[in-house]
């Protein structure tokens, strides 16, 4: 008993082996506790899983659409509407001239009569057309670009060059949809990023709330552990591990969901690709999404648990 001088120091256990062992035990006992109520554990994990699966699933979808549109660029064609002044015989000459270009793989002339016949057949306005004295339709040269013409920009550049021909009134690229698709996928991509942020917040709240309820349920246990000298770290640990396990389970469920969707989508996509004579196949989950889900889940779980523990454990003090 020394009233003067320094107080004796407390003995703290700082053996790293013991520390590791205790962590291993704690993580397993947390898992054990979760497995004792499998239904509610799975439910929480499934909610986390869906929240994690949505962004990576959407990202995958956007990825595939983008790949799809680029693989279809090659099959795009150009319609060159010849000017009124070009006569029937000249039209064939114009076609031959165009056909000589390096970037043209194939060309076909639809003369004014053919154009009218096709219009009549396809539009159903046949009788209305008959009322007209003159054929209002121009001759059209349909061009399939050479494979060396790459992407949306290449075809647009080619169209601009052709448009400059005196004989050509208008060069229309049947590519508008590709451009739009690209714009749409870009927009969706941004949307996915925002959604991912929101859903990450949701996972944080879900885990936080689950842990909060668990802390409340174990109120008296926490009190007693504090009474017999349990440190805050000791009391915190099982809850943090619980959050970690929830996140890990959720991530596993998310990956399972994404893989399952891929599997379900594969055969319709193959069918679709077959229709367009495309050799497109579904892209699998990219490493970024895979790692993002696999690590993002546990990190979010741990963070959610940390938030709950920080807020609610200090409130519990033994009486």
């Amino acid at each position: 008993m020394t009233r003067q001088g320094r107080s004796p120091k407390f003995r703290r256990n700082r053996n790293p082996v013991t520390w590791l062992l205790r962590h291993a035990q704690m993580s397993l006992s947390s898992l054990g506790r979760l497995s004792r109520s499998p239904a509610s554990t799975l439910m929480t994990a499934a909610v986390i899983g869906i929240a994690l699966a949505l962004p990576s699933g959407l990202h995958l979808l956007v990825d595939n659409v983008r790949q799809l549109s680029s693989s279809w660029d090659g099959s795009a064609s150009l319609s060159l509407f010849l000017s009124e002044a070009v006569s029937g015989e000249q039209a064939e000459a114009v076609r031959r001239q165009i056909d000589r270009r390096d970037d043209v793989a194939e060309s076909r002339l639809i003369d004014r009569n053919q154009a009218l016949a096709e219009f009549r057949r396809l539009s159903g306005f046949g009788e209305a057309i008959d009322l007209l004295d003159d054929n209002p339709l121009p001759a059209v040269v349909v061009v399939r670009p050479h494979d060396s013409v790459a992407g949306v920009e290449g075809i647009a550049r080619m169209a601009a060059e052709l448009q400059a021909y005196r004989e050509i009134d208008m060069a229309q690229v049947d590519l508008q949809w590709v451009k739009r698709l690209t714009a749409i996928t870009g927009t969706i991509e941004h949307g996915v990023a925002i959604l991912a942020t929101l859903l990450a917040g949701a996972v944080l709240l879900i885990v936080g709330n689950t842990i909060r309820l668990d802390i409340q349920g174990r109120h008296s246990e926490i009190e007693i552990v504090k009474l017999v000298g349990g440190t805050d770290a000791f009391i915190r640990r099982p809850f943090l591990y619980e959050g970690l396990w929830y996140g890990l389970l959720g991530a596993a469920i998310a990956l399972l969901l994404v893989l399952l969707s891929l599997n379900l989508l594969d055969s319709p996509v193959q069918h679709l690709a077959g229709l367009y004579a495309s050799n497109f196949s579904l892209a699998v989950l990219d490493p970024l999404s895979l790692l993002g889900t696999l690590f993002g889940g546990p990190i979010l779980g741990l963070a959610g648990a940390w938030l709950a523990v920080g807020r609610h454990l200090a409130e519990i003090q033994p009486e």
Partner: protein
Amino acid sequence: MIRFDNVAKRYPNGHEGLSGVSLHLEPGEMAFVTGHSGAGKSTLLRLIGLLERATRGQVWVNGRNLNKLRSRDIPYHRREVGMIFQDHRLLNDRTVFDNIALPLVVAGMAHAEITRRVRATLDKVGLLKKEKVLPITLSGGEQQRVGIARALVSKPPVLLADEPTGNLDPELSREIIELFLQFNQVGVTLLIATHDVDLVDRLGRRIVNLRQGRVASDTVRE
């Protein structure tokens, strides 16, 4: 071992649970705290276990000034002060063994050592055969002994008991007191709050009588 220097405890509602208490317990001493309901017995013990902090004066336990203890040191302080409560404060979903092992588990003791110590303590309180049962299946006296075993298992130098015999019949009460006397013989410092004056009067031990938060008398009855 325990020293109070002019200690006051004013609760947040303004009520003074203790006022101007000075007290000194030597290592290995055993004393009872008596007094009417509301006299401040529990408050006195709670200050020693740092369940409350003094609002005035100084409390020293085991050479440390509790006023200067940081909150992260509190768990380590509590490991040196075993506490026993009238309502036992046991974990009802854990076995007797697990309840008693708790102070050793939180201190990070190795598994084999925990088993050895818990068994030895169970033997001391006469509950060896009950280690695997849940506390709710035990009688009040047995539950109290589980609480005592838990306070004792880590061999703290100081043992506090707040109404440990509160709900027990006279015979069981005497058994519990008998246990405390045994612990004291091996050098544990004990402070026991009780309003059962008859029980402690004939023991020839120090009795601190509190009245309205002050020490009214501090005597050794023969």
